[in-house]
């Protein structure tokens, strides 16, 4: 459980020394866009910085961002959970988002999603066991005239996608290391007490053997 008001006391940095110097430089630039009494307004850009370094927004990262901007941690989390680009759980080192809004849909995006699922062996909203890929449906990317469109790792647009070009994209990504991803915390730490009389929620993959399930649920954001 997250306390409603975390005092704005110091929180330890989640970054390595090298990450820290990059964060500090970019943090200064992000905050400088606002007047001194409005520096808290830089929360979205600063969350982007933290996520770009860690791959996703860990709890310590959100606490640290809150400390640096003097914002209670619960407010940071409220914002981070509102926006779909912020990841509250680790995703694949290559996160593939297939646009499924109306123009892409009319041009065959559902076939593209199906093809991804077959190629990667996961469903939309899941991550492969090796952590290399995750797959999700995303909302309109403003690429409607070049449909269907795919978004890789939040920023890379791939347009006019066909099943064939999708196959090549996946092979290309398979050979690349992709985003580094901060390790997930021990599952127990994130468990929420849902009161008595309720079955515990399944948080682990149902089977863990080498021939078992190939995926874990990692849908982030909303």
């Amino acid at each position, binding site marked *: 459980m997250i306390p409603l008001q975390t005092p704005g006391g110091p929180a330890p940095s989640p970054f390595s020394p090298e990450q820290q110097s990059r964060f500090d430089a970019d943090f200064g630039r992000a905050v400088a866009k606002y007047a001194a009494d409005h520096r808290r307004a830089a929360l979205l850009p600063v969350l982007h910085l933290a996520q770009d370094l860690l791959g996703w927004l860990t709890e310590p990262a959100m606490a640290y961002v809150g400390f640096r901007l003097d914002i209670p941690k619960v407010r940071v989390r409220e914002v981070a959970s509102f926006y779909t680009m912020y990841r509250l759980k680790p995703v694949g080192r290559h996160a593939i988002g297939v646009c499924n*809004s*109306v123009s892409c849909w*009319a041009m065959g995006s559902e076939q593209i999603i199906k093809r991804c699922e077959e190629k990667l062996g996961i469903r939309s909203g899941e991550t492969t066991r090796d952590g290399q890929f995750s797959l999700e449906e995303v909302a*309109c990317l403003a690429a*409607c*005239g*070049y449909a269907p469109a795919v978004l890789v790792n*939040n920023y890379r647009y791939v347009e006019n996608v066909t099943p064939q070009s999708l196959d090549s994209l996946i092979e290309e990504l398979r050979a690349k290391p992709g985003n580094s991803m901060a390790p997930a915390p021990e599952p127990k730490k994130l468990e929420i007490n849902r009161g008595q009389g309720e079955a515990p929620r399944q948080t682990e993959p149902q089977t863990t053997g080498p021939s078992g399930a190939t995926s874990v649920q990692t849908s982030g954001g909303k």
Partner: protein
Amino acid sequence: MALAGSPKILSVDWDKPESWTLKTYGGKYPALEKALKMQPQAIVDEVVKANLRGRGGAGFPTGMKWNFVRKETSFPKYLVVNADEGEPGTFKDRAICERSPHMFVEGLIIGCFALDCHLTYIYCRGEFRDGAIKRVQEAIEEARAAGFVGKNILGSGFDLEMHVVAGAGAYICGEETALLESLEGRKGYPRLKPPFPANAGGGLFKQPTAVNNVETLANLPSIVMKGGDWFNSVGLVPKNGGTRLFAVSGHSRKTGVFEAPMGITFRALLDDYCGGMREGSTLKAIIPGGSSSAILTAAEADWASDFDTLKSKKTMAGSGGVVYLDQSVNMAHALANVMRFYAHESCGQCTPCREGTAWLSRLCDKIMQGRGEKTDVDNVHQIARQMEQKTICALADGAAMPAKSYIEKFRADFDALVRQ
């Protein structure tokens, strides 16, 4: 093949090599030079004469909005740019930012001068970081080096600082007050109005603020250079000046961004700019202005595309995102897709929207999967009617308009899927 004699205002440089550089743009901001010698109110007067309507979706007269801000006595005042393009079917602001960012930046500086604004923010959707945002940032740096941004611009004594801020993936932040909330570092909950953003207490950091769309501002250099009367005369219908960038997608032969006079018919846009429908396709339906707008049948393709005509026909010109759909599309399936979008993007602040969009999406899925009954179709229509005009922002109305119109105009597609 475009309409004979129809001028290009916004896309004039797009086919030139490196169209995004200051060099291609001509190396100068001549409209800014002219504007800095004018009285700010005289610039706004030209915009009023131009009948420039906001290109983000609502079509509000830009000159009127600017006069509201000018009347306020509280300083500082802000101009905030809405570059959070997210309406399904719309991708024209991205094209401006990527292909002619200097036209937009010049227009923005002129707008700030007209409003006595010295600090402006461009709120751009986060996914554009490596594309549109990069181009705009490079354009700003070029403009700064040339003395168009910063202190004492071109020796006029006018100072202006501008910053690009990236959003993080929320359709609702295209709503102007949600955008302001997001720009202030909060989740994108639209604000209750009044006070409106233009008024003290309602804008960015509670200061008077004009929120303008990228395309709206990109028209400013032409209005300043050639005058409001000229701009107004380019539009084909009264009170709708200039051209519009139509973002065309779907089953037309050509898709992409096409510049055509305000008020062109959807038939002319399809036939004269997009080469008609693709091979083997027959036009079945048209989304006229983003997925929030009420749908048109093929027979309604002769309607003019301006704000007032479409409003009188109970739909809207919206964001200029035009989707031509062919006979392969079942409109009940299409509505299920559109409703899923609104259910996902409702911010959850107002109950009729939070519950209504989810309910519509569930019912449409049920109908699409063949599990529906006739009453489900009637219920979709009725729920949509009850969501209208009951919420803080227009997202619920944007979900209700397609829901009602798809059923009213394509009832047969729904009836074929449900048990009678």
